């Protein structure tokens, strides 16, 4: 087996959809800024890159037309670099990382840009023409709305509202502290807009209190426990990691952030999709030959507080290791871009704070989980 490594990570600032500073930025332009900056920062000769893989959950309109190829052209990558858009909803760009790792193992390339993008301002979360299969819709919760799955998970695993709100407050505080300590700055690529250069996240609410959250109305069910405050916000953003073979990274002087030692996908029931990370993580850890207590760093996407808590409990994770710089409830969740962000973030923290193993995992609408296990390289 070849050793595959994460050799670079960058992302755009994340901003709230519709009212945020990136609402008027095209998603292809947004992603191209991040890709261009990452290549530039890596110092890598661009012609050595095999392919640009872009994850996107709703690849239509400005995110359509195989947006990966267009992002490559906008970013000024050499014509020889390929472009492929992948869609596994929220797992899209993490799937891009898995694909790249597989291609490297196959000997089908040495260096891949694995990006993700979602402008939830400009392409709605159902796409412009949602047309579900009526027969499937009638007999299966295949198309269930995400908020409803969060309620289902809260109910099934007994996660009460107060627990969700405490989790959300913690996420906000961690993200606020990380931002204040300058820990988010290096990964962010400033984005030029008509309103000026956007250099920081616009999503964080570090002053959030449990009392304020307790006053919110349930967002999805009149009798429910999930609110806007315990859900990740609709977000605009893009992210990218550079995935190479370890040999390639060493010979080209790239920073080796972490090694990919296990990946997995696992399906689950659509109505409790938030629990998807549990089986996917177990499989990935088994493939890496580690146990949960060996994890020093976990990036577990916070689609909703209820599912994040349920996954932590089911996997027996140490909460202190989870989302050290804050999670999606605070930072935001631009669907297609989250996978690359949390892989990059897990690798970054492993390198920054020390430790041996990291896990990046997320749930996926329709009922799936995806997971990546990383190992420190020192």
């Amino acid at each position, binding site marked *: 087996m070849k050793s595959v490594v994460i050799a670079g990570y960058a992302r755009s600032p994340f901003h709230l959809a519709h009212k945020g500073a990136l609402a008027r930025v095209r998603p292809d332009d947004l992603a191209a800024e991040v890709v261009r900056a990452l290549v530039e920062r890596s110092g890598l000769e661009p012609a050595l890159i095999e392919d640009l893989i872009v994850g996107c959950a709703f690849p239509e*309109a400005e995110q359509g037309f195989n947006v990966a190829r267009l992002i490559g052209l906008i970013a000024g990558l050499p014509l020889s670099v390929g472009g492929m858009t992948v869609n596994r909803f929220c797992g899209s760009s993490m799937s891009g990382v898995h694909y790249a790792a597989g291609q490297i193992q196959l000997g089908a390339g040495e260096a891949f840009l694995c990006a993700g993008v979602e402008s939830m301002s400009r392409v709605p979360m*159902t796409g*412009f*023409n*949602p*047309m*579900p*299969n*009526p027969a499937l*819709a*009638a007999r299966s919760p295949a*198309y269930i*709305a995400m*908020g*409803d799955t969060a309620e289902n998970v809260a109910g099934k695993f007994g996660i009460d509202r107060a627990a969700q709100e405490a989790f959300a407050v913690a996420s906000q505080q961690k993200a606020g502290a990380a931002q204040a300590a300058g820990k988010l700055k290096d990964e962010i690529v400033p984005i030029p807009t008509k309103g000026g250069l956007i250099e920081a996240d616009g999503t964080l609410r570090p002053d959030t209190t449990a009392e304020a959250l307790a006053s919110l109305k*349930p*967002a*999805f*069910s*009149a009798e*429910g426990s999930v609110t806007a405050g315990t859900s990740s916000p609709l977000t605009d953003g893009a992210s990218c990691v550079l995935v190479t073979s370890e040999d390639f990274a060493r010979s080209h002087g790239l920073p080796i952030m972490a090694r990919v030692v296990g990946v997995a996908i696992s399906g689950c029931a659509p109505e409790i999709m938030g629990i998807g990370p549990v089986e996917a993580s177990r499989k990935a850890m088994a493939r890496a030959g580690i146990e949960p207590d060996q994890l020093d760093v976990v990036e577990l996407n916070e689609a909703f507080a209820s599912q994040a808590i349920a996954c932590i409990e089911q996997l027996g994770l140490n909460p202190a290791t989870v989302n050290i710089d804050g999670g999606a409830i605070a930072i935001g969740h631009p669907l297609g871009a989250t996978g690359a962000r949390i892989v990059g973030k897990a690798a970054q923290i492993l390198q920054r704070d020390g430790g041996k193993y990291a896990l990046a995992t997320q749930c996926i609408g329709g009922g799936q989980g995806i997971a990546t296990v990383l190992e420190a390289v020192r």
Partner: protein
Amino acid sequence: MSGAATISRVCVIGAGVMGAGIAAQVANAGVPVLLLDVVRDPADRSAVARGAVERMLKTDPAPFMSKAAARLVETGNIEDDLAKVADCDWIIEAIVERLDLKQALYAKIEDHRHEGAIVSSNTSSIPLDRLVEGRSEGFRRNFLITHFFNPPRYMRLIELVSGTGSDPAQVARIADFADRALGKSVVRAKDTPGFIANRIGTFWIQAAMNAAFDLGVSVEEADAIAGRPMGVPKTGVFGLADLVGIDLLPHLKASLLATLPEDDPYRAIARDEGLIGRMIADGFTGRKGKGGFYRLSADGQRRKEVLDLASGEYRAAAKAPSLPGKAGSGDLAALLALPGKAGAYAWAVLGPTLAYAASLVPAIADDIAAVDAAMKLGYNWKWGPFELIDRIGADRLAARLEGEGKAVPDLLRLAGGRTFWRVEGWKRQFLGLDGDYHDLVRPEGVLLLDDIKLAGAPVMKSGSAVLWDAGDGVLVLEFTGKMNALDGEVMALIGKAIPLVAARHKALVVYNEGSNFSAGANLGLALFALNIAAWGEVEKLVVAGQQAYKALKYAPFPVVSAPSGLALGGGCEILLHSDAIQAHAESYIGLVECGVGLVPGWGGCGEMIDRWRKNPAMPKGPMPAVSKVFETISTATVAKSAAEAKELGFLRPTDGVTMNRDRLLADAKARALQLAEGYVPPEPPQFRLPGPSGKAALMMAVEGFRARGLATPYDEVVAARLADVLTGGEADPVDVVSEEDMLGLEHRAFMALVRDPRSLARVEHMLETGKPLRN
């Protein structure tokens, strides 16, 4: 709008309720406006004006007609931004009623205003000559008083007062802008205290309140007598005081007492009622305070309570007394002749008020027409004081005044044996101070159906609609049923009108002068049919409406609809089938059928999809237009202005908006004649619709609303039927769905829903309470 062209930027100084509201109305007219107020917070210097705009965005009824209008208001403060008035063609001062402050402000404005810029004050109490003391001749030439009424968007009156030095061309320029761009009716008033409306209105309120205390008439009795039967809004005087704020009354009184002539009759009736003073002191200032003459009980049941004028305590409101015979329906002679307290109270209000009004001409206005117009537009009276006198009889009024030893105004004697208003030579005429009758001259470009009706017989009529000849080859279709409701008679008349217009005329305008264009199909009639299970009758009406509206759409002549007020349900659908809509800015348009458990049945569904899919901003594919229309119709969304109706797709981008109600018919007629040149009827649309897949997507959204408690179980049933229609039923996206197919789908969905007892319950509830039943 020729007026708008001459005023391209306005500044309003003073961001209180009036100033901010005036700024909003200027913005509603599409004219950029600078709103300034004082600096209260040194760190946030324009916070006062900005706060006023933010507050207005949350106010209901809304001062702004659209969010786009709000963006036309630039806010600032008097200290830093006064130089910006140099770019403004009209500077409106609406600060507190203090002469020294106003004069100081004018001095500063004089330094910055450009030559030719007009300055006006919204004062309601300070004489013009005092205001311009110390100002240059150039300033005086360009200064006048423009007195708006609150709220400025909704009240149609502006009293315009010019000074001896005012430049007539500049006065005309503002009058024209106020009329065409702001949609106001301009009444020229003289520079006297309270001008016209508040002079008479304050007297009337005082007389009505005094009489209630003196005669022992209860609050609810007083308002029941001095309200509707006199053509006054049902709030009467006590309800009106609650609405405008009881604390305002002493201010109005003080300002009038400070300036009125020594012998003015108001001085004799002005008095401080101890109870009212205590109410104000204790915060019972009306609707904005803890309560007023009326309040809703604080026990959570929100029952209506009234203040007992004798004890000063609240008690449950009694049912308003119903007046016998014609006394309750506008026959003032009968009202005044009522025995007991009712007749005495009516006289105590009307007698002195009408005598007072008659005594004030020509002191406050050049003619009686201005006085009647001011009270109708400024106080929403159905009849002005002189029209009220005509309804009593000038001689009868004079005789009764004389009999009681009261002064009889000269004007009443002048009218002796005659009326103040008459129709002669197919024209409205009023009695002049010279004792002769004069034609009521409408401003150029104003055409009223009321005037057309004086000039001749209808072309054709049915029980619920009439066809009038508006000249130049244009016929007008008027609805005449209650609330202008639509029924088989309307459809039948449309059927007969089409061949007539095609043969002998150029165009048809659908228009009326009711307060509402049409509240839709006649629900009362429908309920009757449903209660006796007369499905055949209901079905006949569905088909008749579909056929009539399609016949209008494909007629060989243009049809222009000109709504004002509510245009709901079937009243909206007739707009949708017109070649063009010329809407009054205050049009409230919506397809509200779902609220009564139905779906649009007269072609509204297809017309709305056709509008949205032609919108260039819509994404491609079978769903976007369908989703948009589904959202609007399933939630029974009603546009709160013509501007909002454009945003919701009821109006096309090419449809026109008229700000001044009185200019609506003329604008619609002009549009119709313009369309008549080389007119070609439209081609029927062909739809590509998503079919069952689209319905599945829409119903997922509805289920989400259900889960959140925002939709009821029966909402879901109705929404499913609506989704069936809008997605084309069993349509496949590769097939073409015709307009006929869409009508068939509407027909089936409508007939399925009317047979459901839950729809019947909704219809009944709406008729009984005027509110939707959430079953």
